[in-house]
């Protein structure tokens, strides 16, 4: 038993760390650590920098631009990025659409899309959820009707993260409403967002931010070449994607950075003339979060080690990283808001200048992060998965 990274792994970590120090643009970093929204231009600028280094799609096969790193290196890379305050590239292109194309796409589809995803030329978004199909994804209703060499799409998607930036969207649509099993009438289709008939409508969340959208499809004509895999086999594709690597879902690196920021904040805030960090009640809360995070880090490393040894992902147990990881994130955002005290109250857009920009983002951050236990398979769905697969219930 040895909990330390190997010498090569530590060297790799230093290399990533050093590279980030030089290449991560300071204005982007400031936005990330200050909890501000990034623009499409920010994401794309950062993507281009990574692509130039050959680091935009580490997990891809080497022939398509992957780095050939093993699981541990990829984990270290993610962790260093998070610690440094580098934005995570939106996963929809590189980590969601691309693995699907690599597994199920035609060579023409791969040639058309993969290089542009790698280079950050196209901004991809995900069209899965619908008003009536959230956790129960197989209930999707958005209809795709085959008309000649096109599909005609009608319906609606919701919760489309960064949909306002989308150049392309991959969607689960219903191609056979008559199918005996709901899962057998679904297809996986790619659409150019500039196609006539697509409307994006912002959904403003309680933090005031514009992060998610509704997307409406009104007789949208999509060439049949944009179907991925076979018609009515979209569920196979979706399942493959859901089972895809989720090792990063504990967000250990980001939580470490945010916990450090919380400590700094609690150092600065005074309670009865003394730093809040010395307050017993507050200290206990921070300690418990930190310990949960320590445990999460070791649990993640145990899974990594298991994958390294067996070549197998640890399956349903990975869901516990998502559950605990998001709980830790939410606890940190809540404590940060509490640490801000009365300064947590002013709403930033109408009270500019009353409190400093960082403090003013703490409550919106808390509000925003209630999403974490809801998205990417709600924590209740994750518990269902563990109950069924790990506990045999």
């Amino acid at each position, binding site marked *: *038993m040895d909990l330390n*990274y190997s010498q090569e792994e530590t060297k790799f970590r230093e290399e990533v760390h050093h590279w980030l120090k030089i290449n991560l643009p300071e204005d982007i970093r400031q936005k990330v650590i200050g909890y501000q929204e990034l623009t499409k231009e920010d994401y794309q600028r950062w993507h281009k920098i990574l692509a130039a280094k050959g680091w935009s799609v580490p997990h891809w096969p080497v022939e398509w631009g992957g780095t050939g790193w093993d699981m541990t290196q990829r984990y270290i890379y993610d962790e260093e990025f998070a610690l440094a305050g580098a934005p995570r590239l939106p996963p929809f292109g590189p980590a969601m659409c691309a693995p699907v194309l690599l597994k199920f796409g035609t060579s023409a589809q791969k040639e058309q899309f993969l290089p542009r995803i790698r280079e950050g030329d196209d901004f991809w978004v995900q069209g899965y959820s619908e008003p009536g199909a959230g956790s129960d994804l197989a209930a999707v209703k958005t209809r795709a009707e085959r008309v000649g060499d096109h599909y005609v799409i009608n319906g609606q998607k919701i919760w489309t993260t960064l949909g306002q930036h989308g150049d392309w969207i991959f969607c689960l649509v219903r191609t056979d409403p008559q199918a005996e099993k709901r899962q057998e009438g679904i297809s996986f289709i790619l659409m150019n967002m500039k196609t006539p008939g697509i409307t994006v409508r912002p959904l403003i969340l309680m933090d005031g931010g514009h992060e998610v959208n509704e997307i409406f499809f009104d007789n949208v004509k999509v060439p049949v070449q944009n179907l991925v895999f076979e018609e009515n086999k979209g569920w196979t594709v979706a399942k493959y994607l859901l089972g895809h690597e989720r090792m990063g879902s504990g967000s250990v690196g980001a939580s470490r950075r945010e916990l450090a920021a919380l400590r700094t904040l609690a150092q600065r805030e005074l309670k009865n003339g003394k730093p809040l960090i010395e307050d017993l009640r507050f200290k206990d809360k921070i300690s418990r979060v930190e*310990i949960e995070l320590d*445990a999460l880090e070791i*649990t993640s490393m145990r899974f990594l080690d298991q994958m390294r040894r067996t070549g197998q992902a640890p399956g349903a147990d990975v869901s516990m990283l998502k559950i605990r990881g998001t709980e830790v994130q939410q606890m940190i955002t809540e404590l940060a808001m509490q640490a801000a005290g009365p300064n947590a109250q002013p709403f930033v857009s109408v009270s500019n200048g009353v409190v400093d920009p960082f403090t003013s983002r703490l409550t919106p951050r808390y509000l925003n992060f209630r999403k974490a236990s809801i998205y990417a398979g709600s924590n209740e769905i994750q518990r269902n998965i563990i109950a069924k697969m790990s506990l045999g219930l």
Partner: protein
Amino acid sequence: MNFELTQEQKQLADSVSKYLINEYSFEKRKAIISSESGVSAAAWQTFADMGLTAMTLSEADNGFGGGAIDLMAVMEAMGEALVVEPFLDNVGLAGRLVSRMGSDAQRAKLLPGLIDGSERLAFAYLEQGHRYQLAPQLTLAKSNAGAWVLNGRKCLVTGAASARHLLVSALTPQGASLFIVDTQAAGVELNPSRTVDGFRVADVAFSNVSLHADALLGDDGAAMPFIEEATDFATALLCAEAVGAMKSANDATLDYVKQRKQFGVPIASFQALQHRMVEMYITTEQARSMAILAASKVDDKTNASGRARAVSAAKIKIADAARLVSQESVQLHGGMGMTEELKVSHTFRRLTMIAQQFGDADHHLERYADLT
């Protein structure tokens, strides 16, 4: 990075586990607890024969020079079986203190017997009214013409009645010191009792106990760092034991809900219960991660504050987890979980006591914050 146990570590734990399943079953354990001594001489001898008592002693003392990691899986097996032998007290505490502080003569006197199973020790350090404090305050030793006189009392000394010698922490004008005290010596009085979780303990009173100069273990006034280290080491082992007990509670609960039927279906089919069992499972895995961290840190001799911090962190996690898992396992067993008949109620008691042993969550939160 490697979380796998070595072949030897696995084999050892397997043998211990097999032995315990056969010879320390729930029924046999009951008989042991209600026997006069409250411990099993046969089990102790087997532990010694398997090399468990020698595992973490140095090679110079004819031990195997192993660390907490080497005993981690063994402790887990002991936790599953709810072993009530004073193993932790001998191997984690007293034996370690003798081996690290003792002179050649003291080590030669006590350790061979510990290794071969013929001699047991107990560590007397808790004092009435001072909760989990390690530093002695109510037990005093005075130097008297090259010898010592010991006065005071200790409480909850696990395994005192089955031990021939006690290691007693006492305050001298130089500070906290440790003394080897024969349990039969004049002026030593044992008042034995049983804990909620089936361990034999004793309150021990010392009135004008005269000790030879060679009863002093290590230097006068220099015991605290050793006591702290040994307690951290034992706490790390206790954390591993707790993981085993939690696993036992979880397994029992899963089995139970799968066979217990109400409303015509196994109660395992109810989502309200499923999610609670998932929570127990995740909590146990997170606790296991912290137990691993603690074991690896107590084996790292180069970083004392890192060791203390990791052990306190682990103990906090274990205390919280033990509480959740034990309470939920009884709740999900329904009325049956309350009964003496089912093992789960015994696991409940053990986990409840583990949560407090060597300091509860609040105690360690304070220590953890001071070290941060």
